[in-house]
């Protein structure tokens, strides 16, 4: 238990990353702001192209399939589906590069 060769998780295994299992309120606030920023970019593109009378397949598809920040459930904003997790949900911050990728929809029923 004591002494120089005690085994703790960080000393025993070397690298130890501790990711908290849920987001803090400020992380959730920033996540909502990022979602809104992406919504704003999509809206700007859509308005600009509509003025010129052009359409864009990827833009139309995004608008048809993806909910906006206001339409999303908080469950989908802060957690995502994972088949290996208990109750099939994990925090969205476990997703690599989670602040710079879009992860909005989850399998229906989960």
């Amino acid at each position, binding site marked *: 238990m004591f002494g120089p060769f005690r085994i703790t998780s960080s000393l025993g295994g070397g690298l130890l990353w501790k990711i908290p299992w849920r987001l803090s309120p400020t992380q959730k606030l920033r996540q909502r702001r*990022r979602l809104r*920023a*992406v919504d*704003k*970019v*999509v809206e*700007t*593109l859509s*308005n*600009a*192209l509509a*003025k*010129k009378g*052009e*359409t*864009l397949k*990827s*833009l139309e598809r*995004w608008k048809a399939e993806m909910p906006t920040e206001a339409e999303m459930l908080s469950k989908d904003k802060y957690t995502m589906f994972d088949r290996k997790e208990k109750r099939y949900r994990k925090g969205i911050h476990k997703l690599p*590069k989670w*602040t*710079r*990728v*879009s992860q909005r929809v989850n399998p229906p029923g989960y």
Partner: protein
Amino acid sequence: MSYFRITLHRSAIGMPKRTRGVLAALGLHRRSQVVFHPVSAQCAGMIMKVKELVRVDEVERPLTKAEVKAERTPDPGFYVERAVPRMADPTISPSSSAISAAVKELGRVRSQGQGGQEEGLEVRL
């Protein structure tokens, strides 16, 4: 003719090569860099690929590099004063002829009085 004003807000470090390639194609190489592209479906498609990393506005005309820098530069809080020529106003300052007359008068008095006459000498301008 309107333009997209695209600012790279988030770094592309660690993003896939495709994403970095799209940013390079847009001409974005560093964070907070601003580029302008005419509104077109092609350009909009490229922005859609990197929508999480950029901020986009629609503007009427593209700004030059100097104009973009100027809007980022804060107010320095000071300004440099320059010496300006005084305005010729006879009611406030004497005219040049009056000054030259006074200087002549001073020279005449100096040449005359060598001794203690210097004290109490007053030339009114």
